[in-house]
């Protein structure tokens, strides 16, 4: 059953791959602005037909993100004075700062419980809006990088405002609207009810609450965001009421990151290059999903053996297999939504979720972020291959010279540095250690997971960790911001320097980048780089727990 579930997802994604990929290609390359967009640009005061150099593109992106952080922070701090407050007080300052960064960076790490902290207005006008636009920003950066490969002798890489608005309004909004109604049909709630009490069959009082959940749930998955309306996220029956809504949510998570490889192939004029990138993502993703299923179904640890199945932290309607598939999908992308609690997974099942994030979330990764991350790995791969045969490496006709490889390497180094330094600092001080719920290697895994998740902008957690403290809110907030914006700056700089080049003609020494050989090389480079970086840390956590 669990395998049919995975296969059906693969088939469904294959069916929508071409139409959605081609649609996004038209969205990002079309010259016409529709009426709504023209009004929007006028309101923004930007000229949509003026292209930007990479530095201007980056400045616009950063300005938008900074203003977004301030706006989300302000709405949380003022929520008690605004509509739909539900009587909740303002969000505490350090949690508000952490949450603002978290949602603007597409991380959606949650240091709070949605149902008793955030007003309905905060959820829909602050958090859900960032679900859309942070996803659109990721897509914009990916498209800008692809333009770098596709253009010849160009100083510019597009217009940030146009990419932002088109991604939000033309791609995400229509899919979200239809998807929200599908979820409502499945039982997800969409109302403005606040907390109230009902009487149970046995005469006790049960606290219940509602909210505009479906409209937020759909973009939470589609934009690979992951911030749940409620504390228990996609395990909550109001967010994910049945086994088929669970299927649909996984489908939404993978939809855009997968289809963007088609958009990439179209934009560089060689569909087979897109297929090669898709193949790399597919090989890693399927291997990871299968392994996670195998480990969880085997239930190889003391408590799952005592129970008879790894059912702790999992809901009956999903079962073990579909929970494992969701867990793999959410960490292979930068989503971080959960339908089951990774902290209670078997040691190796939990390790897979960690390892998926450590891969840099490139298979298929977050919306946009997955594609640009994977293209960076492809650049590193042609460089490694070039070293082997002693030729100047090139990718898609662009020479990978010293500037390009420096930017790619810097990109790669940012998140491991944040993860490992962050974990080390946390393990070295009282405030950091105090967060552990579990003891021994599992406690270390909780801390490692937190920094891995924040720095890679995933947002899921080994949830036992107590992170709503000022120390963690600040530390993880910094990891999220640096882990998002430093790589983006390097990617845009790379896009700028690639766009300026005129393509070199293919020669006998050019490594073909659309064949299985190249796919194998990229998979190898990805796994080896990550294994070398993180194996010692994994050995102290899940591996120690699983083997002894």
């Amino acid at each position, binding site marked *: *059953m669990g395998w049919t*579930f995975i296969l059906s997802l693969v088939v469904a994604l294959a069916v929508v791959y071409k139409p959605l990929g081609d649609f996004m290609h038209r969205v990002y390359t079309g010259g016409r602005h529709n009426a709504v967009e023209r009004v929007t640009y006028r309101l923004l005061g930007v000229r949509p037909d003026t292209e930007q150099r990479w530095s201007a593109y980056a400045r*616009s992106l950063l*300005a*938008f993100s*900074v*203003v*977004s952080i301030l706006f989300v922070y302000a709405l949380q701090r003022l929520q008690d004075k605004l509509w739909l407050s539900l009587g909740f007080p303002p969000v505490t300052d350090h949690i508000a700062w952490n949450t603002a960064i978290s949602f603007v960076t597409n991380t959606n790490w949650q240091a709070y419980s949605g*149902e*008793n902290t955030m007003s309905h207005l905060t959820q829909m006008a602050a958090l*859900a809006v960032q679900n859309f636009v942070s996803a659109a920003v990721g897509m914009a950066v990916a498209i800008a990088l692809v333009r770098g490969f596709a253009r010849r002798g160009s100083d510019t890489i597009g217009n940030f405002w146009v990419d*932002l*608005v088109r991604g939000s309004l033309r791609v995400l909004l229509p899919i979200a609207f239809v998807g929200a*109604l599908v979820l*409502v*049909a499945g039982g997800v709630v*969409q*109302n403005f009810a606040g*907390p109230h009490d009902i009487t*149970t*069959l*046995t*005469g*006790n009082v049960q606290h*219940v609450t509602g909210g*505009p959940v479906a*409209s*937020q749930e759909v973009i939470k998955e589609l934009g690979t965001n992951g911030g749940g309306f409620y504390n*228990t996220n996609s*395990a*909550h*029956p109001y967010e994910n*009421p049945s*086994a088929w809504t669970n*299927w649909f949510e996984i489908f939404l998570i993978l939809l855009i990151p997968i289809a963007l490889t088609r958009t990439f192939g179209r934009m560089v004029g060689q569909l087979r290059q897109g297929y090669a990138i898709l193949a790399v993502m597919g090989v890693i993703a399927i291997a990871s999903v299968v392994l996670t299923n195998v480990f969880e179904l085997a239930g190889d*640890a*003391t*408590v799952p*053996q*005592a*129970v008879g199945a790894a*059912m*702790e*932290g999992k*809901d*009956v*309607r999903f*079962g073990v297999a*579909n929970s494992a598939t969701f867990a793999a999908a959410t960490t292979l992308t930068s989503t971080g939504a959960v339908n*089951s*609690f990774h902290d*209670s*997974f*078997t040691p190796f099942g939990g390790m897979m979720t960690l390892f998926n994030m450590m891969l840099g979330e490139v298979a298929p990764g977050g919306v946009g972020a997955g594609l640009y991350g994977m293209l960076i790995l492809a650049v590193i791969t042609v460089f490694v291959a070039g070293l082997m045969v002693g030729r100047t490496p090139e990718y898609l006709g662009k020479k990978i010279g010293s500037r390009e490889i420096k930017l790619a390497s810097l990109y790669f180094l940012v998140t491991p540095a944040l993860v490992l330094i962050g974990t080390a600092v946390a393990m070295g001080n009282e405030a950091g250690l105090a967060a552990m*719920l579990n003891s021994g290697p*599992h406690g270390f*895994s909780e801390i490692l997971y937190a920094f891995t998740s924040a720095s890679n902008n995933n947002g899921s957690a*080994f949830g*036992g960790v107590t992170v709503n403290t000022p120390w963690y809110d600040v530390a993880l907030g910094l990891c999220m911001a640096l882990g998002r914006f430093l790589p983006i700056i390097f990617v845009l700089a790379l896009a700028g320097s690639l766009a300026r080049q005129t393509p070199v003609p293919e020669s006998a020494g050019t490594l073909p980048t659309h064949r299985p050989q190249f796919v194998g090389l990229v998979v190898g480079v990805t796994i080896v780089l990550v294994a070398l970086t993180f194996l010692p840390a994994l050995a102290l956590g899940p591996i120690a*727990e699983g083997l002894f």
Partner: protein
Amino acid sequence: MERLPSWIRQHLAALRAVLVLTAVLGVAYPLATTGVAQALFDENPGLIGQSFTDADGNPVAKYFQSRPSAAGYDMLATAASNLGPEDVVDTPDRTSLLTQVCARSVAVGRLESVSGARPYCTSDGVGAVLKVFPALGKPTRAVSVNQACPARPFVATYQGVAVECGKPGEDYAAGRTVPIRGGATAVVPADAVTASGSGLDPHISVAYAELQAPRVARERGLPVDQVNTLIEQHTTGRPLGFMGEPGVNVLELNTALDKG
């Protein structure tokens, strides 16, 4: 506008972008979705699980019982336990996940008049775990850490060493943790002894429902067959035959029983 320095223009555009996009995506979109959704679909009242206990938290025997919940079925404090798969040693502040599982198994066994025994559990319902000293090499001392004195340890000896009962407050961290499987096979199903992810799980497994059927039938003076038929009627199968797992909606089942 054009005369302002470019960095100010940039941030003004950003501010306007945030406001415009908030109006569209943060206000118009959720309101439109709400309007259409409420016109087209009815809300399903049976989605959220309840606990069927009395005011003191004891199970009410005429009702099917839901799964354990780390949230106590409170929708304003949803949570999972987040305890790890090797959380097997009780501490003064916290009961280990293994002991929670063992204790639930014994309690369910008692309620349903079946064996509550499980692998890795003692007969008194705690985790069957030894701390063995020294951590490496031939054991010289073994303590059943989850069984506080004067309890009788679940095994008398471990590799020739007499097993002691645990003394609360003593630090056993230096020892090697050795869970002992024992020979038991579990009768009580997995979902009955584990807390759900949502803390609001509306379902139990078919096996757990069938385990409870004789007790509910007896309490209500109904034939067991009739109760089993109701279980079947409130079992959600796998959508399309391959998604998720079958489950019995406990609230709907109990409501149907109350209606007679």
